[in-house]
């Protein structure tokens, strides 16, 4: 079960700051979360993601371990 940590607007949309989701990839995780909260679907696709502390700007196909910790964070622009 992946442990999902939300920040910002997603906490309001999901009504919680943490969830556990039975997903073994980011793709499956986003699909599951989008079904649970359709209004958050676009936001989830725009966000950067950290998996076990490593920040990914594009993580769609990344695999998740059984005890993965996933954070959805605002996208990071840079100079």
């Amino acid at each position, binding site marked *: 079960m992946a442990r999902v940590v939300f920040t910002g607007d997603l906490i309001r949309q999901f009504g919680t700051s943490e969830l556990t989701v039975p997903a073994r990839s980011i793709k499956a995780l986003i699909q599951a979360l989008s079904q649970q909260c359709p209004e958050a679907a676009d936001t989830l696709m725009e966000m950067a993601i950290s998996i076990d502390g490593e920040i990914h700007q594009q993580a769609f196909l990344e695999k998740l371990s059984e005890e993965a910790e996933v954070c959805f964070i605002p996208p990071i622009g840079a*100079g």
Partner: protein
Amino acid sequence: MSAKTTYKWIGSSPVRPDGVDKVTGRANFGADHSEPGMIYGKVLRSPIAHGRIQSINLTPALQVPGVLAAICGDDFPDADAVQGMSSGESPADMRDIARNVMARDKVLYHGHPIAAVAAMSPEIADEALKHIQVTYEALPPVLNLDQAMAKDAPLLHEDQITRGLPKKPTQASNIAAVLNLKRGDLETGFSQADIIIEETYTTPTAHQGYIEPHAVIARCNEDGRAAIWCCTQGPFVVRSLSAQVLGWDMGRIKVTPSEIGGGFGGKTTIYLEPLAVKLAEKSGRPVKMVMSREDVFRATGPTSASRTHVKLGMNKAGKITAADVKLECEAGAFKGSPMQTACMTALTCYDLENFNITGYDVVVNKPKAAAYRAPGAPLTAFAVESAIDQAAKRLGLDPIDIRLNNAAKEGTVAPYGAKFPPIGLVETLQAAKAHPHYCAPLKPNQGRGIASGFWFNAGMQSSAAINLNENGTATVITASPDIGGSRASMALMTAETLGIPYADVNAIVADTEAAGYCDVTGGSRTTFATGRAVIMAAEKVIVSLRERAAALWELKPEQVEWRDGQAHPDSEASAGADIKPLSLAELALSAAKTGGPISAKASLTAQGAGGGFGTQICDVEVDPETGKTEIIRFTVIQDAGKAIHRAYVEGQLQGGAVQGIGWALNEEYIYDEKGCMQNASFLDYRMPVALDLPMIDTVIVEVPNPNHPFGVRGVGETPIVPALAAVANAIDSAVDARMTDLPINPPKLLKQLSTA
């Protein structure tokens, strides 16, 4: 992935491949390119900061002899039809980009493009601009956070609804977005504090200040394709954004990046490019457009002005018990200030149980903010690092010890929710404390400041190709513009991986049709991400070289090892056999006989860019009679993971610190009450020059990033982050004057001193 520790080339400082061309003036920057039959484009810019465009008449301009084309917003697809987010590192609203490049129904800042012409000479084009007839309905300009956030504020965008609030508003607002990050219980945290520091800090609008103004040449061919030459941090982003603004298929556009005279984030978007293409299409001639310095200041992305309120609770032992941070950030004319990253980095240096961070992205009638070196991070770092210094002073604690007491380390959960992998903040603080600078004596009116800072660093998409030449040299091709030494870094990583001399590698930056896709050079990502693509391509070349040697020796490839730039038979194959190693040059020379040219390509989405932390020590001397602050000593200490080209890394640390010093002491946009910038030149917008600064000392800490073969972390952005607070803290140490409003220029400091 585990990093090696001993290298032949990595960590050295060989001669820079672009150095000779740059010091001899041979290097071709954006404005240096020419095309046969080329004409010159100029932009008409709004003389008011806020207004509705009632009419534009281009005909009189077209009647000026020598004018070949004129365009305005009507020549582009309806901006409302340009939907979606841009690709690349920093998603941006394409509708906003389209309207920023060329105003449509409204002008939103003084300098906003309204129309453009192309003529036989720059002088004729300037004359033609005077003949364009525009009528406006002037609207009240909204020039600061208070005006923009007032209840009855004039709206820049009547359809802008604030994002991120608990309940979606029904009324439009100049507040584009709100972000909240929190953990723990603030009330409990503050109840555990022995002291509370509460202060509001402000930073002004500041420009990246790159030396080279934006420049572009565009040519439209008879087959409907266009070629663009420009100075940019990302040719693929120019291709994508320009195509969307023009309503073209991006396959019609080829972008060739020139040498670049600085970017610092300001050249990760487009301004002139679609205008030049449209003028070239209309005139049938190649069109060159070059911004003046005044254009650059008035109409290209500065970074945001900001106001940050910090409430910090700390116990007597110097442990932060709670932190409440509220940031308001000017976005300029369109949403998208670096508010989010400013919030995410505000408290990232520290391991905190109780905090609340709230950010507001606010539109005002100023140029749209663009990325600037660690976008947003210096704004909140100035506030938080100043507050921590104030707390240290109140408690009588050492400012480095107080930071070590609270420092984030591996396993700390950052305010944005991610748990840190190995990071080097503690190591930079320890190195600062051990540095001779930290205990050097100070004279009267001199003071010392400390500050730390963080930047995420990015990965994203990169590609690289390596071609071996028949003499055993290698050409490395990427589309990552070299803004901070990436050609040298790519050559070093190639040389190290292949085992050949650095001088035998030629790294080049190619166009969008000759190189594989690369995201922009930005986010301190290129040495990490494009470097990984280069290493992957070099490893593929080695596979090919082992196959060639195996074929010549009639062995299996797995029986051939690659060491020190040579193929060797493994111990089993070489036993009793007289097989001499084959060098890369020998294998390259015989390539025609063993399968043809040797080359390889690699592409990736690079994950796991390690975060960058730094600590800075600043000494100042304040003249109490004039209020002038002189930087007398400055040391930058930063975790680079692994420095690939040591001198270039030192240069990045020095350059970032200098930009931060300028922001702290001098730089600011000054507007009149109508929203017209009053200091749009380097004479009046005062950036530090060599005479203003001491030699900036550097200490490179190396805590390897486990996600790079050599341990690389990005280094370009972190060094600007602590510098603002380091300077302010040093001034307070020197003359007991806590300055919370940047820039700390002589009149402001003198006023503070006289008040005290």
